[in-house]
């Protein structure tokens, strides 16, 4: 089976990373921002997994990516809970419209 060049995986992860960044910066809806964050996590995981290919005995990369996935899941849960609270409070999930009571 042909080896996938490491550079190509790294490039893919770079592109996904920057797409995640773009989503985080440009999107107004909090949930989409969360999606962007998930994309960034995945890009990072991709790198870890790619390098762990060269570490068959220890598989440190894969282990790390496992924990990353766990933390990401926890983060997503908490973040969505926060989004829901925010929505309940402000009647919107639009980040631009969320302003404190004094500045309204």
């Amino acid at each position, binding site marked *: 089976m042909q*080896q*996938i060049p*490491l*550079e*190509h*995986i*790294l*490039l*893919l992860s*770079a592109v*996904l*990373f*920057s*797409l995640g*960044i*773009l*989503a985080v*910066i*440009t*999107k*107004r*809806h*909090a*949930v*989409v921002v969360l*999606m962007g964050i*998930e*994309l960034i996590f*995945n890009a990072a*995981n*991709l790198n870890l*997994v*790619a390098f*762990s*290919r*060269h*570490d*068959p005995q*220890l*598989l440190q990369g*894969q*282990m790390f990516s*496992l*924990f990353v*996935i*766990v*933390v990401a*899941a*926890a*983060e*997503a849960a*908490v973040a*969505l*809970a926060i*989004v*829901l609270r925010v*929505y309940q409070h402000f009647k919107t*999930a*639009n980040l*631009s419209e969320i302003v404190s009571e004094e500045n309204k």
Partner: protein
Amino acid sequence: MLFYIFALLAIVSGAYMVLTRNLLYAGFSLLITLLSIAGIYVLLFADFIAVTQLMVYVGGVLVLILFGIMLSSRVHDKSVMSENVNTVWGTLVAGLIVVGLSYSILKANINSLPWLQTTEIDVLGNQKSTVQTIGIKLMTDFVLPFEIASLLLLIALMGAAYIATDKQKV
């Protein structure tokens, strides 16, 4: 060859997620991206990770996100839209990041790293899967992080439940 198809799929659907203004489309395109990445994990001999990806992300996080979308929108007969802000800055920064990363990746000459040279590529070896290795690792070398991760998950679960609860005045 399969890798490039998955890579293209991931990039296109990721880009679509960023570009579309419809939240549901964005969620589903993220689903495709995550699936593609799972496929790439498989190609990278990380079957356990790929499965975890599928279960946690596609089965958990994404469902959470879809629920979040539905719960945080008051629209009934119309698509949920999200407008863009900071397009210039965002594009600039993202573009710079991708250019910078690509430049460094291409310039780094990763293949000449000594430990990549010396280590063998055959991950699986005689085994069919990495599950056994990972299981041993988790119970031996990574037992403390494993326990801490479980504690973290518990705390996150309680915290999320607590935060999301509608706190009625009792």
